[in-house]
């Protein structure tokens, strides 16, 4: 456990953040290679992703009724790096025993008030097939006869967390969910749920969406030395694409967050050529997760109509005190704009000629803008 925040007493958000990049028994690791490595190796993105998510919770997260009550951070990386807040804490590594202890302690902290919010974030290797997802701790493969001995049965844990009093729970699973022959051969064992579910437990039904970086069976993508595509999209969605003001002030709502992540992922994936990764969601419901201090920033995609004219068009955007422009380029123009009214224009350059413009209101989750040109 590395409790960066622990403020018991009031209802609040209790977060458990796990980032695993250093796998001793996968390719390139420091230990004996597991026969079940399945082509998996070392990752540089999960530690950065976990830190970025933790930084957001410490510095950016805001919810008047659910302040951050606890935050536990586990990170496995080749060279451990202190987390600056508070006081250069060195995160504990995410070996299975440490993860198990952290999950149990996290459960206990949140199991005090039905108004608490459980927040779970994992970035690292995962295995999945169909409706089953298993997350790999850093000592995965250390016991060759049973590699999943050091893996977390996320599907089972999700069921088990229904026993927690906290009736609002949010899960972010930023992991490859490639299918594994291991899962098929072990059949009746898919990792440890840590907290097994029970049929005897009955309470008010929880609201507990799960955001996955990718569909089951597909690879998720990290970025070397940077937070992953999914984590970047999620954190950016918290700035605006994942919010609406239907209940009053601008707030990240769990259903709007799904749309925001989807569009930011689509944009990022086309940039990074990580084709195939599309975020997905389970058990989506609606509740406020984060309140914005100002106006939301909205992803905007600007292009000529027809698209082929982009290559000859100088594009401009005016509004909300901004004047932006871009020289001709074949791709569409991706912007992040504060919510508000804007005018977009296209000025065709030789050998083409002509102009076009359109005005529109930009609001979350995403605004495509098409400028008709001759």
């Amino acid at each position, binding site marked *: 456990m590395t409790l960066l925040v622990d403020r018991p007493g009031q209802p609040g958000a209790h977060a458990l953040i796990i980032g695993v990049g250093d796998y001793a028994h996968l390719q390139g690791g420091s230990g004996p290679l597991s026969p079940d490595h399945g082509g998996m190796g070392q990752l540089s993105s999960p530690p950065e992703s976990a830190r970025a998510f933790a930084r957001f919770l410490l510095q950016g997260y805001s919810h008047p009724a659910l302040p951050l009550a606890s935050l536990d951070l586990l990170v496995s990386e080749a060279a451990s790096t202190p987390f600056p807040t508070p006081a250069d804490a060195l995160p504990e590594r995410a070996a299975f025993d440490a993860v198990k202890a952290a999950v149990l302690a996290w459960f206990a902290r949140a199991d005090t008030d039905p108004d608490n919010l459980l927040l779970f974030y994992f970035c690292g290797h995962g295995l999945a097939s*169909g409706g089953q997802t298993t997350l790999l701790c850093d000592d995965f493969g250390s016991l060759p006869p049973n590699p999943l001995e050091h893996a977390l049965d996320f599907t089972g844990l999700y069921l088990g967390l229904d026993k927690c009093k906290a009736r609002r729970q949010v899960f972010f699973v930023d992991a490859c969910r490639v299918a594994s022959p291991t899962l*098929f051969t072990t059949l009746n064992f898919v990792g440890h749920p840590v907290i097994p*579910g029970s049929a005897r437990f009955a309470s008010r039904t929880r609201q507990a969406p799960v955001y996955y970086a990718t569909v089951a069976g597909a690879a998720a993508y990290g970025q070397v030395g940077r937070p992953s595509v999914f984590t970047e999209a999620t954190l950016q969605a918290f700035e605006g694409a994942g919010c609406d003001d239907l209940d009053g002030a601008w707030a990240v709502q769990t259903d709007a967050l799904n*749309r925001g992540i989807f569009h930011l992922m689509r944009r990022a994936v086309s940039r990074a050529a990580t084709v195939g990764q599309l975020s997905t969601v389970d058990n989506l419901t609606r509740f406020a997760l984060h309140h914005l201090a100002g106006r939301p920033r909205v992803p905007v995609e600007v292009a000529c109509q027809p698209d082929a004219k982009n290559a000859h068009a100088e594009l401009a955007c005016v509004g909300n005190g901004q004047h932006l422009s871009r020289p001709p380029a074949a791709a569409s123009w991706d912007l992040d704009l504060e919510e508000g009214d804007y005018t977009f224009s296209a000025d065709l350059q030789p050998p083409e000629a002509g102009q076009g413009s359109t005005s529109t209101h930009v609001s979350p989750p*995403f605004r495509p803008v098409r400028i008709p040109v001759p």
Partner: protein
Amino acid sequence: MARLRLRLDKYFDGESGNARVVARVRPLGRKAGGAGDVRNVTLPVGSDSGRWETVDGLQPGRYMVEAFLPSGEIVATEASTDQGEQVVLTGEPSPHEWLGFQHLWGNIPGREQFELERVEQVPTPAIPAVALVGPPLAAVGREPVAESCDRAWRTGQAVELETYVEHALQLDTVVDGAVVSYRVRQGQPRGAAGLRRYLLAGTPPALLCVLPWPWPNADGGGEALVEVLVGPELQASSTGAGARHFAAPLVRDSQISSALAYLGSGDLPSARKSLPVAQELLFEKMVNPVAAAGGGCVLVSDWLRQAGDAAQRERWFGWVNTLARSFPWLPDGPILAGWLALRGGAEQRVDQARAALLEAHRRGLPFYAAALRLLYDGLSLLANDATEDGRGDDELQVALATVRRLVLRLDVRQPFTVLQLGR
């Protein structure tokens, strides 16, 4: 006061099935947190210029109209009440009119992307499929059944799964390159009650799709078109390595097809919004029990969350118990009943839940992926308790082992059950 009339323009071949998508109408120029006049609505989709959603009682002014499609596409336009009341939204075009529904559901990319991918692909022959008619596949995870399906594939025609088949299911096809739409020919004899229909698609390891056929429209308006789109897997499949194709069954139903599309995308709030207001039509008349089960899959989490209302609870229990009792060939009914018994009220009925879930397992493969996952979750909870108590419960353990194998083969992107066979 002013009003707007809204629709989303999209071309389909043949029947549109009264498709609808969720949308919102949001006034522009108001301050955040101020008195809003946001309207959550559903819009008709299609090329019928006679179908509109009317939004009355609006303050004159500018509005943003946004439609959220099951594919994830957002179609938005600004409208002003002083510029006429009709607002037509136009989204990304589908590759063909016959792929319009599949594009709306998110099973196939838009025209531009489709053409791009087709250009990049080596020409591929269309992926063949065969229809199967037979008894419920209670244990499709067991190898003998997978082998039986493989045999069906090799024979290339409708075959017996067990010992009796009353008729072969006739399919029509529409093809573009490797992408094929298999459509169940309408007006065929339905055969004996209790027979189930499947589509086996692709070369081994093949995909087994549960066909929602026959599918009478709940409003009594005839039979809905059931189709399965089969094509090369553009992304890694839900069940991973080895899958070369995808299969996407859908139904052009007048009542719940849109809700099922959102269910498949994981967007439950939109699925609920797009269910018909008159849920009684779905649940009380039971014209189409498979559709009612689909509605139940969309609503079950709401039912569980609102179970404190005794009158409502009794009504839902009544519907679901009728579904479970009256249609012994439908596994999805007892799955829903089992969950209502587990979590649906102040008084928990674990024994009743156990009996219902085991009955569902005996009835065979659920029609809906969501129901199969609920069955897995419910059996897991019961098995955990048996283990904790040191009780042996062989029947439960056998059912759980079978269902786990099915869940591992499930394509979770599809609302209807699609399994990858082999391995």
